[in-house]
């Protein structure tokens, strides 16, 4: 899809405006009442091949790129599918019925068209002239060619502008004309206007996604798509949790605003554009604008349709607030202490955060879950960096932030993780790993410490895990290999009062060394039975 749409070096502003202008014409033509029945019948033909065919027989100056875009966008939006087919059909019809514009038009329109016709004729003559001259004298300097080109372009521009304005003047009069079946008309119109706007809208989004060609895209957007669209798109990325509670402080008296409640399905639909009046969501801004027409005449002006800017929305109207469809929720209008939500975005985020499963799991920590993807993205930016933890559970990416928090709140302290993060291979000059502590206990045990510690068994078990062979830790083997033969011949100090000295000595060492050394002392023959009462 991207490949088809992206490469459009020739898609200058004119490339875009041409089809839109052209289609406006066609749309206008399609408003002819007799046609509606035929349209309805054609609706049933919906068939990709048919659409392709339609596309191929479009007028030559309709940009191919846009059509392909329209088609490509079809599968992703099944809701709009019908409308688009509608519109395609109409386009085809439009090409057939172009001449019928003046059939119903008042005089002003006729004048306009006559003027346009004249202009087109003039241009035709000019082009004829150029063609003639070119055939006469080939090899003219390029400057002249360029000049002629400019001249034609300027004329074409003015024609198009007038065409659009003519079409625009026509629009407000649609409703009274088709008063009998207003909804049907609206539906048709909604569909009719789609191709130009949808195509552009799609491309804008695409550009945003790619993120590289925003600058050269802005030209195109100026014509059909309002910048608000892009802003809206960006906003969604930066939305924070505050969205939902942004209206906490505002105390609108009940009744001073209109309460709207979207259905669950609407909230959860992957829409990015929402009707500020009824809250209905759309995937494309163009669809939204078509939808807006149903809310009143002020949305039907060419300005509102082509460039739904602030003027359209800033008109005085009743403040709108939103209700959560979830019964019992504080944000539900039935709740006693109902607190309305300010925007559609708030509704969306509130509903997802509060009433939906948290289906997005952070890929880094695999523990934190979110229901709003933007929350996940925000978290992922900081995940792993928030190593400063407060006893209240709040994490901070920076130590000073944590300390500021602790200074502020009574009783909060920095949390110290229960598990030491140090690995088992701690160098002995640092670290106080669990293993080391276990060893302490184990040795304690080996030494026959009289600690009445209930954990002793556990400790020994730990030892076996940690030290390969706890019994061999102070194994008598060491003593055996070491020559203790000289021990017997050890010179006895002069003060020695016979056996007590030696017997004192040995139990002494026995007390503080290990079974191994006990073995050794027995081997030397010194009986350790007579313990010195120290």
């Amino acid at each position: 899809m991207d490949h088809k749409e992206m490469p459009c070096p020739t898609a200058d502003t004119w490339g875009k405006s041409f089809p839109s202008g052209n289609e406006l014409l066609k749309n206008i033509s399609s408003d002819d009442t007799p046609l509606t029945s035929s349209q309805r019948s054609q609706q049933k033909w919906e068939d990709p091949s048919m659409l392709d065919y339609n596309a191929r027989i479009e007028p030559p100056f309709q940009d191919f790129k846009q059509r392909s875009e329209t088609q490509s966008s079809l599968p992703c939006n099944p809701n709009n599918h019908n409308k688009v087919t509608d519109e395609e059909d109409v386009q085809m019809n439009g090409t057939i019925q172009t001449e019928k514009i003046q059939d119903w038009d008042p005089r002003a329109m006729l004048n306009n068209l006559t003027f346009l016709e004249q202009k087109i004729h003039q241009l035709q003559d000019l082009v004829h002239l150029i063609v003639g001259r070119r055939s006469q004298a080939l090899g003219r300097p390029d400057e002249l060619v360029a000049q002629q080109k400019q001249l034609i372009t300027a004329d074409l521009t003015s024609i198009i502008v007038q065409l659009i304005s003519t079409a625009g003047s026509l629009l407000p009069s649609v409703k009274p004309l088709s008063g009998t079946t207003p909804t049907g008309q609206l539906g048709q119109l909604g569909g009719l206007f789609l191709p130009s706007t949808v195509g552009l809208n799609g491309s804008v989004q695409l550009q945003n996604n790619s993120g590289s060609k925003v600058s050269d895209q802005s030209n195109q957007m100026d014509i059909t798509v309002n910048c608000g669209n892009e802003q809206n798109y960006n906003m969604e990325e930066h939305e924070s949790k505050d969205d939902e509670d942004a209206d906490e402080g505002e105390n609108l008296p009940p009744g001073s605003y209109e309460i709207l409640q979207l259905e669950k399905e609407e909230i959860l639909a992957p829409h990015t554009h929402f009707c500020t009046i009824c809250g209905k969501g759309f995937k494309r801004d163009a669809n939204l604008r078509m939808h807006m027409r149903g809310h009143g005449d002020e949305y039907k002006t060419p300005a509102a349709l082509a460039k739904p800017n602030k003027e359209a929305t800033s008109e005085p109207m009743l403040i709108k607030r939103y209700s959560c469809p979830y019964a019992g929720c504080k944000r539900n209008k039935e709740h006693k202490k109902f607190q309305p939500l300010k925007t559609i975005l708030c509704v969306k985020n509130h509903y997802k955060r509060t009433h939906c499963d948290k289906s997005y799991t952070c890929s880094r920590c695999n523990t934190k879950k979110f229901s709003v993807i933007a929350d996940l993205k925000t978290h992922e930016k900081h995940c792993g960096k928030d190593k400063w933890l407060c006893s209240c559970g709040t994490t901070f990416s920076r130590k000073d932030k944590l300390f500021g928090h602790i200074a502020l709140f009574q009783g909060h302290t920095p949390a110290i993780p229960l598990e030491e993060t140090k690995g088992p291979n701690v160098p002995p000059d640092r670290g106080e790993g669990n293993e080391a502590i276990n060893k302490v206990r184990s040795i304690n045990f080996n030494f026959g410490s009289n600690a009445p510690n209930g954990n002793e068994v556990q400790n020994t078990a730990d030892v076996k895990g940690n030290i390969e062979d706890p019994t061999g830790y102070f194994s008598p083997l060491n003593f055996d290999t070491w020559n203790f033969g000289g021990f017997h011949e050890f010179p006895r100090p002069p003060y020695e009062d016979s056996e007590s000295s030696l017997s004192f000595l040995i139990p002494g060492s026995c007390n503080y060394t290990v079974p191994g050394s006990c073995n050794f002392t027995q081997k030397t023959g010194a009986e350790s039975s007579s313990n010195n009462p120290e």
Partner: protein
Amino acid sequence: MLLSVFTEDLLVRVYIKLGSESDRKTWRLVCKDFLRVDSVTRRSLRVLRSEFLHGLLSKYKNLDTLDLTVCPRIEDATVSVMLSQAVNSVSWTRWVTRLVLSRASGLRYGGLERLVGACPCLEVLDVSYCWVYGDREAWAISSVRGLRELRMDKCLGVSDVGLAKIAVGCGKLERLSLKWCMEISDLGVDLLCKKCLELKSLDVSYLKVTSESLRSIASLPKLELLAMVGCPFLDDYGLQFLEHGCPSLQAIDVSRCGCVSSSGLISVVRGHRGLAMLNAGYCFSELSAMVLYSLKDLKNLNTIRIDGAQVSDSSFQTFSTNCKSLVEIGLSKCVGVTNMGIMQLVYGCVGLKIVNLTCCRFITDEAISALANSCRNLVSLKLEACDKVTEKSLDQLGSCCLQLKELDLTDCCGVNDKGLKYLSRCSELLSLKLGLCTNISDKGLAYIAHNCTKISELDLYRCTSIGDDGLAALSSGFKNLMKLNLSYCNGVTDRGVQYIGCLGELSDLEMRGLVNLTSEGLTAVAAGCKKLSDLDLKHCGKIDDSGFWALSYYSRNMRQINMSYCAVSDVGLCMVLGNLTRLQDVKLVHLMNVTVKGFELALRACCVRIKKAKLIGSLRFLLSTEILETLHARGCKIRWE
């Protein structure tokens, strides 16, 4: 029959009058009733051996102070033993307000938490030099809500997080020492100053804190003492915060702060006219006129130390005229201290009691005479390396300063036997240092020994003219001697050292480089000096296993020993390390007769209680990793040479 006369109440009153520990020991041995009075009345207990811990704690129920500093094997399991009896009877912990766990590096957060948790009234806790302590131990400490005083010097692992725990948990802290807690930064100090507003004394010496910390500290309303020794990042800008902060500040120590200069000091002084103590040693090269001018206003100043500064006679003029209440002055290594200066100083400051003139080489008898004449209440005088001082000075001191308790004459070549004769009139002397005084002989020592019987510390380092007769005199005179340094007194032989054995109170003995000393001498010392706890035998090359055999048999109180370069073998080393159950600090380098296996076995024999060891570097790779890990896990610090 005595008991029929004396009621228990009276016995308690008598018991309270007993001063020394040995007197109390005698008391206990009189009879069971006396013993009971002792156990009921005793408030403070300093335990020497972990074996006795259980029995002692079950006997003394009214303790308010428990000191385990010198007790080996204080670890989590010991805590279980200590608290085990608490279940079925009245616990010793109920009135304990003061717990001294200094150097109890074997104790970890689990045991510490249980121990402090068992003492509901705990107010003072000392865990200094528990170098393995970190944030978890700090966490355990933070559970003591009523803590007022905490010393955690050199708890190397405690960081801002641990300090924050304590700051939040112990909001009533009044005195806190964080000396050498190198992980603590401005953030921690800032939080501390926000949470503990009761702080009266704070020591942040040697921390890497900056002026930001001083900004926080300045907000402490009750701070009286601030010690910031050797903080390399503290500067004058930080001291300016103190000018307008800490309204109750009375004592400040900024010595060895490289970035502090006179201007910072002036701003502190300007803000605190009531300053009583100022220590600005090694801060600035010259004591400028500006500083002196500002010092004029400190009418209450009683202690000033300006070690290492360049001073002039006029500086002393200022002190003399303004700081009349000066009690202590430290002029160690000051440049420009002259006789004239000292004479001017003592003319005004007659109340001086402590004077440090170390390395003021231009001082002569003239200055000392003036000092002795003016300052009759002199208690401590340090004259190390003042080699122009002769017997004339000592004559003056001996006739005027009869209160003198401490005198340092190290490296004063002018001191001779005649001088010592004069000095012997100072009968109150407790500490006398005569190191490197090569001109003194047995005769001089005899004068001192005869008259200055209260001396408890004597330094005879490299007094090469001292011989066995001197030690004979010494042993008959100094019955209270606790510290003795005989290092490199080459004239001393076994005969002399045998006299040392008569000194029953001796606890510290340095005998480095006594080349004539053999096992026989050491045996006599070991047999006689039952209280010996610190022994240095480095380079006593003639002492072999038999000497150490005796040592391991008799010196049951030995806590620290240096056996480097001795002729001890595997067996001797194992005997010493295995049998001396209070041994906590050993230095064992260059033991030529000891094999790697000997070291291994000896260390295994003592690894449960040893806290510090110095070993030859090559052993690091020869000893088994198990023993090294065990030692480390027990909180033993090994210094590799």
